């Protein structure tokens, strides 16, 4: 049996350039991937909680989360997700330009599943996005993609 349901990514990113780069990097994937974009933390939480215009939003299989954003930043979003029993199991990959030790330690402390820094340049960026996609979608067992083995 094969599932044709696409994998759902929620990309939380305020920089349109980085959104475009991520989309392009994922567009040549062998996997069926559907990307939703939230431009800041407020939108991200509304999307995840299916509030207002997001009432028909699909629960993502993976969240790619930027740290520095207007209105509500990535640290606040991460803290809210990991404190919410209905959302905490969704893997959150921090994807940010910050390589500050305080951001890295704080993110893991808040429950980030992994922390990856954005490199400069499209080729390098694409390589990182591909590696994230490869690892999380082909190696890892995601909590939301369940086929009971029993």
């Amino acid at each position, binding site marked *: 049996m094969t599932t044709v349901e696409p994998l759902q990514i929620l990309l939380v990113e305020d920089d349109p350039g980085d959104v475009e780069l991520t989309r392009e990097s994922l567009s040549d994937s062998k996997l069926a991937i559907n990307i939703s974009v939230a431009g800041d933390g407020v939108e991200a939480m509304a999307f995840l909680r299916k509030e207002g215009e997001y009432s028909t939003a699909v629960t993502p299989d993976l969240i790619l989360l930027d740290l520095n954003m207007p209105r509500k930043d990535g640290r606040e979003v991460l803290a809210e997700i990991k404190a919410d*029993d209905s959302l*905490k*199991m*969704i*893997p959150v990959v921090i994807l940010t330009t910050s*390589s500050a*030790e305080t951001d*890295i*330690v704080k993110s*893991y*402390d808040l*429950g980030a*599943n*992994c*922390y*990856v*820094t954005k490199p400069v340049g499209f080729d390098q960026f694409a390589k*990182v996005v591909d*590696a*994230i996609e*490869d*690892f*999380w979608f082909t*190696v*890892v*067992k*995601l*909590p939301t993609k*369940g*086929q*009971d*083995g*029993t």
Partner: protein
Amino acid sequence: MSIRPFQILLVEDGPGDFELVKTALENSGLKFSLDLVQEGTDVVAFLNRHEPYIDAKRPDLILIDLQFRNGVGDQTLKEIKSSHSLKIIPVIIISDSTRVEDVMISYNLGANCYIIRPVDQAEFLKLIEITMKFWLTMVKLPTRAR
């Protein structure tokens, strides 16, 4: 730039994947040191450097072998992720269970990722190689952030 070897801790119940994980790390070409502790109370003693582990090195990454069919559960994961000083260390679950409930429990307890052990050894080795490569070369680890 830190050049100290990657410190990996494997937690398992009985003889299992130590040799295979070691081979996967050797194949990566990265400098590493692999420690093994048995599932149970030993792990927290090791991580907190209590007797007989006063010289134990703090791991950069922890692999926990979960064998649901042997009744070995997620006590160690729970203890690590509820400890203020230990919770930042990424924990990779290697499990023999594909049951949705088992996967959910691990993520809910704070597992950083959950991997199902394939029956085929060659396939398993490849999976561990990819996993190590991802975590040790792509990911920023909290213990190596300086």
